[in-house]
């Protein structure tokens, strides 16, 4: 019963985590003057102003628009009972959100509520995702030994 509860908790954490990430990404991340910008507006502005460093960072920022799709894929996989895949997607979404939001939070920009919210959601998604992936891998190993 403990395992079932833990698994259920991990699923809830994964879904909740990615949802918070998406909601956080739509909320204001930075404030310039009296204007606030969401993560997507900030990413587009940074791209237009040419302030993105070249290489992986640029790809990561440009790919940020995929976050709602990643979150949706997480929820869809979990709804279909593919918990390991769902957990893995939650882990990726959470890590992506935490890293990007952390970079913005530690920059010289005046930050707003969206970033911390995405970090919080990201951490919840990471924990849920890890639990599901570990549980999935363990179950697969046990099935293999039987």
């Amino acid at each position, binding site marked *: 019963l403990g395992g079932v509860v833990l698994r259920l908790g991990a699923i809830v954490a994964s879904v909740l985590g990615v949802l918070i990430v998406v909601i956080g990404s739509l909320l204001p991340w930075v404030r310039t003057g009296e*204007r606030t910008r969401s993560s997507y507006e900030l990413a587009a502005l940074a791209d237009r102003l040419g302030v993105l460093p070249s290489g992986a960072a640029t790809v990561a920022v440009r790919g940020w628009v995929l976050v*709602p799709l990643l979150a949706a894929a997480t929820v869809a996989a979990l*709804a279909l009972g593919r918990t390991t895949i769902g957990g893995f997607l939650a882990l990726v979404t959470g890590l992506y959100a935490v890293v990007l939001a952390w970079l913005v939070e530690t920059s010289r920009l*005046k930050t707003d509520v969206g970033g911390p919210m995405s970090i919080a959601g990201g951490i919840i998604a990471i924990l849920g995702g890890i639990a599901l992936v570990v549980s999935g891998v363990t179950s697969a190993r046990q099935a293999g030994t039987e």
Partner: protein
Amino acid sequence: MSDQQAGPPAWPAPTTPEYTAPPAFTKKRKGKVIAGVVAAVVLVAGGLATAKLAMDRSAKGGAATPEAAVQKMVTAIEQNDLLGLVDVLAPWERDFVRRQLTKLTKVAKDNDALSHDADLGHLPGYTLRIDGLKLDSQAVNDHIADVVPVAGTAHFTGNLDQLPVGSRIRDAIATVDPQDRTAKGDVDFASLDESSRTPIATIKQDGRWYVSLFYTVAEGIRRGADAAPPDPAQAVAAQGADSPEAAVEQMIDAIRRVDMRRLIALSPPDEMAVLHDYAPLFLDHVQKQLANRPPLPFTVQGLQFTTQNVEGGKKLIPKAFTVKVTGDNPVTVAYERTGDTISLRVDAGDQPVVATLQRTASGASFVIDGGQQGKITGTVATIDDETFKVHASGTSADSRAMTADVTVSTDGKCIVAKGTSTSDGETSPIDGNTCGTGVPGASAIPMGSLLGKFGQIVRYDRIAKLFDIGVVTTQVGGKWYVSPLRSTGEVFAGLGRVFEGLSN
């Protein structure tokens, strides 16, 4: 014969097919269907959200109409949003302004003109609110439109105390009467006559309208001169060179021939689009004025460059060249930079003057050799980050000699010179202190401090940065152009690099 008869084949006994009931629509199956529907709906929603965000992101900024572009600019100003203000500019101007802002902010902070915690994202010191703004646009040609405010009231307040300036400027502001540090005003656009309404020029690029600083200035000048709108068909066609080096060489040749049209054609068609567009309004007049003028009396020979990649282009730093100025007073200037040695030879009369600066282990050495006119040699030795010593010795044409060490006194307030001077066979000591202030009225800057800064600057590594100033070329459509704005910016940036991080 056997009784055995061959009978008909035996048919299998008929069986009644076993009835299997269709699987019951169980709770489990129902759950799977619901899960599938949920998954599909969530995936479609996520996909749509991503597609919408991606489409918003692919928009290149700007606005659908000239009025909307100016409205975005006004909103950014009202919100003290510098990033938003930069974002409404035409793409090339946006890049230029962003680059210059970044560089200038750093220099301004280093030199205490801006406070160290100044945030460029936020423009403090003023409030602006415009009620009932109505904008009207007038097409100048197919890609330029002037936008003017025709109605609305602007309410403005300004406060010097809130400006993010450095401590020195803040101290100066503190001396101003508190009442004079604030300003307040209202402007009713409807009551302004047409000549008082400054048009803001917008330009169309890839189907979107952007505010343009350069076109606004150009339009202001054109309207002031009462000239006809620029005709796109008459614009100066861009004509770049095949390489960055060729672009610079062709630019020098165009300067020598005073060929304005060629100079404009060699400027980048994106960055200098305004010049290409508006040049026909004045070019014919200028060319007529210069028609009978002979080429400028100089030639440049042996031009060699060191090429550096810079953001969006290549910077060409002169490595060697000889400039010959002909005419009544011919002068030849030869410059060469080899490794850690910079030399300059000037032939302007009977005797050439050769100046050489060379890196040494402790600083730099210099020689200024005027032949029979005299010679000065010396070293600049860096003692530590703050102090240095100049040792110089020289002889003049009339056999006077001097050798001296120049340092800053230990309290940093005076310049101390010690050495000997020989004239007509008599040697006399040099032992002097120069104290006080270097700048009249600037009691806060002692002479020693100024010399201390000079000592930091004349180190080889710093002074050599002056000779890193070059010409910036950019590539557009496979051809190379000389960027006048970026090259000018490079001069200021080069000076900034020399003074960068000097201790106050």
